Structures are given as structure tokens and as C-alpha cells.
């Protein structure tokens, strides 16, 4: 690991000031991606700004069925929180399937979505459940937040503060996971709230995406039969040693059907 200066501010303002003062600064949340990256010398920040002491990034609040989760809340706490398990069980279940227990005890919601790994689980949750990302500058709909592979709408130095999930009618997340890494080869979130039905897919493409055709079909009739004949084109999907694009395209249908079956 290359040497870097280290700061552990107590407020968002101080954190951003430290970020802007440094050349090529890096925020540190749970560190489950950043620290391995630093160890491999793939990054060389001059200063690492540790977000671990900022109270404004912590905590989970629920009101009228909606849930807001602080950016620094770790996956294990999302999985275990009674209000999330009650109001958005699919989100708690999704969080319980990220990585392994040690990773879930460190990795955070904000860190994960800011990194936007194409095989990570949370993007499917945020887009599928119609969440809003509150940053230090604005509120962003999840659809606008995830812009590309490892890319988000966040400007340099802008921080995710919390993520709000609206009241839910029903949802299920089905993941076909890589057995070694537990990352999603394909993960599908099927969800319904007052604004309609959403089908969001992670792991299959360069960035999370929705399937409007399935959403429309499920709005007409919420059943496996309604989406059984919808074919996903493999053209824009990921292909690697774990799965071809065609295999991923097929898996999207299978995972979506299984998710529908769980909540139909």
C-alpha cells in the first residue's frame, strides 16, 4: 500500500473540506472495496478521509411504511434491523446475502452504491424499490443515480448521506450468485408500491437496469405466466468466465419468474 495522509472528521462539512483540500483524495466508508484496491496499489490517494466517525451518516428511521437508512449503516445492520425486516423484508434478505458475515459487518450501504460495482446487490434494491438517494447536495432518484459501470451521478467530493425507500406493497429479490464471491451473476428485484411495479436487474449488464416489458406485463397480470414469454436480448449483457451473455439473459427470466412466484 502506498502511503497516504489520514483524516477522521466528525461532520459532513469537515469531511468535504478535507476531500477538497487534498489532491486525489478518497473517502473511506467500510473499506471492503477500497482497502483491497489500495493493497494492490491500484489507487494512490494523497489523503484518505475516513467517514466512520460521522454521526449524520448513521441510523435507520421508519415512518408511514417508508424507511430511511444512513449511508454508513453496514449490511449486517440492514439485514438485522427489525423495522426493515418488517417493512421491506426483501431488502433485509438482500443485505443478508452480500459477501460473508465479516464483510457485512464492515461494508456499508453508501460505500456500496457509490462504488456501483455492476455485480453488487444494492443497485437492484434501490432501482427496484424506487428509492431516493440523499446526498450532501441534492435528492436523486435511484434511476438517475447509477449511470454506468462503477459510475454514479455523484460529483467529486459529493457524499451519499442516506437512502430512502418508499412504503412497499410486496417485493422479492432473487440472486443467482457466484458461489466463490457471492456477487450476483444475475440478481432480479421485483417490487410493487403505490407508484407501480418495477423489475430491476443487477449483475447482468454494465449497470443496473429495468425491464419495462416485464413491468407492463406484471401490471396487467401479476403471475409467472405474464412474463414467461418475454425474451431478454443478450446483446448488451456482460460475458465473462462465469457466464456468457446468453446465459445471463436466460437467468434474468428465471430469476424474475422465481421472484414473482414468491410474492404472487
Amino acid at each position, binding site marked *: *500500500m*502506498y*502511503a*497516504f*495522509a*489520514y483524516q*477522521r472528521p466528525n461532520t459532513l462539512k469537515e469531511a468535504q473540506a478535507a476531500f477538497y483540500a487534498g489532491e486525489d483524495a478518497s473517502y*473511506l466508508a467500510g*473499506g*471492503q472495496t477500497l*482497502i*483491497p484496491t*489500495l*493493497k494492490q496499489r491500484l489507487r494512490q490517494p494523497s489523503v*484518505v478521509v*475516513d467517514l*466512520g466517525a460521522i454521526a449524520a451518516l448513521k441510523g435507520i428511521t421508519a415512518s408511514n411504511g417508508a424507511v430511511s437508512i444512513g449511508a454508513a449503516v453496514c449490511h*449486517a445492520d440492514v439485514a438485522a434491523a427489525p423495522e426493515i425486516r418488517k417493512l421491506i423484508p426483501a431488502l433485509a434478505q438482500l443485505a443478508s446475502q452480500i*459477501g*460473508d*458475515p*465479516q*464483510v457485512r*459487518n*464492515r461494508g456499508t450501504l453508501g460505500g456500496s452504491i457509490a462504488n456501483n460495482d455492476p455485480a453488487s446487490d444494492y443497485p437492484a434494491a434501490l432501482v427496484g424499490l424506487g428509492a431516493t438517494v440523499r446526498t450532501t447536495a441534492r435528492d436523486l432518484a435511484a434511476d438517475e443515480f447509477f449511470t454506468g459501470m462503477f459510475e454514479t451521478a455523484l460529483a467529486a467530493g459529493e457524499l451519499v448521506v442516506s437512502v430512502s425507500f418508499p412504503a412497499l406493497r410486496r417485493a422479492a429479490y432473487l440472486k443467482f450468485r457466484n458461489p466463490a464471491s*457471492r456477487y450476483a451473476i444475475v440478481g432480479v428485484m421485483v417490487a410493487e408500491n403505490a407508484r407501480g411495479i418495477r423489475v430491476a436487474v443487477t449483475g447482468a449488464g454494465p449497470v443496473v437496469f429495468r425491464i419495462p416489458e416485464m413491468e407492463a406485463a406484471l401490471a396487467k397480470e401479476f403471475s409467472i405466466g405474464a412474463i414467461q414469454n418475454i425474451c431478454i436480448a443478450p446483446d448488451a449483457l456482460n460475458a465473462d468466465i462465469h457466464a456468457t451473455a446468453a446465459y445471463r439473459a436466460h437467468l434474468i427470466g428465471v430469476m424474475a419468474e422465481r421472484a414473482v412466484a414468491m410474492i404472487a
Partner: protein
Amino acid sequence: MTDITITVNGRQITATVEPRLLLVEFLRGTLLLTGTHVGCDTSQCGACTVLLDGRSVKACTMLAVQADGQRVTTIEGVAAADGTLHPMQHAFREHHGLQCGFCTPGMVMSALALVDRHRGEPLTETVIRNELEGNLCRCTGYQGIVKSIAAGAKAMGAKATGASVGGAP
């Protein structure tokens, strides 16, 4: 350099460290607590697992400065002061929970964390196996480890349903 104060195995330790020093390097290199192992050094094998404020973490994927103000428990802090093994350590010895022993410190720390996390609910073989996702053993095939954890949990007073565990070779 950054000043940190960490309570390691009940002892408060103040040190001045480079920010890039990993927690596992601090434990092994600075404090000479070499029971915590570095296996893969890539966040996968879990040999470096320690408890941070009672929760399992991979000490190779954390900076020492991030543990400032917190409690760290390593394998050296598990047995009683007079050397009497913790029930979980005893169970590993009793039920052939190790062969070469390299992964064992991490296995025991993960086992303690999982027993703690599942207090008040049945600790089935499925739960134990699922919770061991972050710990790799390349010798035993896990049968002995799963059996040990079920037995250790029972000895610790958890509702382990360990009777059915470890039947297959």
C-alpha cells in the same frame, strides 16, 4: 503518523502508527499477537478474523487507525487467564475441528461471533455452514469444524441442534 488507542484483549494500548498499517499488521507486527493469521491477504479466507466491538471482521481488510477507540478481541484473548481453553476452543480439539490449524484462529473467532449473533434461536447445521462463508479451510472439508461449532455453541449455552451434525465423513 496517527495516534490510536485500542483495547486489545482487555488491555488498553496507545500507539502511533502509519495510517496505511493494516489492523492485522498492527496485531502481529507491533503487538506480536501472532495468533491472528494472514492467509490470503485478499479478504477471502478469514484466517485474520478478529472481533471488533464483538463483531467479526477481517483484520487484513481494515486499517489499524479505523479501530481507534474500539475493542479488539483476538484468539489470544479467548482462553481464560490461567490457560483454560474457552468452550469453543475445547470443542475444536474434542471434535477434530482442525488439521493443520492455520485457519483455526479465524474459525474460532467467527464461531464466537455466530453464536453471539444467533443467541435465542436454534443454531442448525445450515446456519453454521452459511455463517462460515467467510472462512476457508483447505484441510478438513468442514465436517469437523461444523461439528465443533455446534458442540461449542451448546457448551456456551446456545440452542445448538448439533446432534445431527457431522454424521458424514
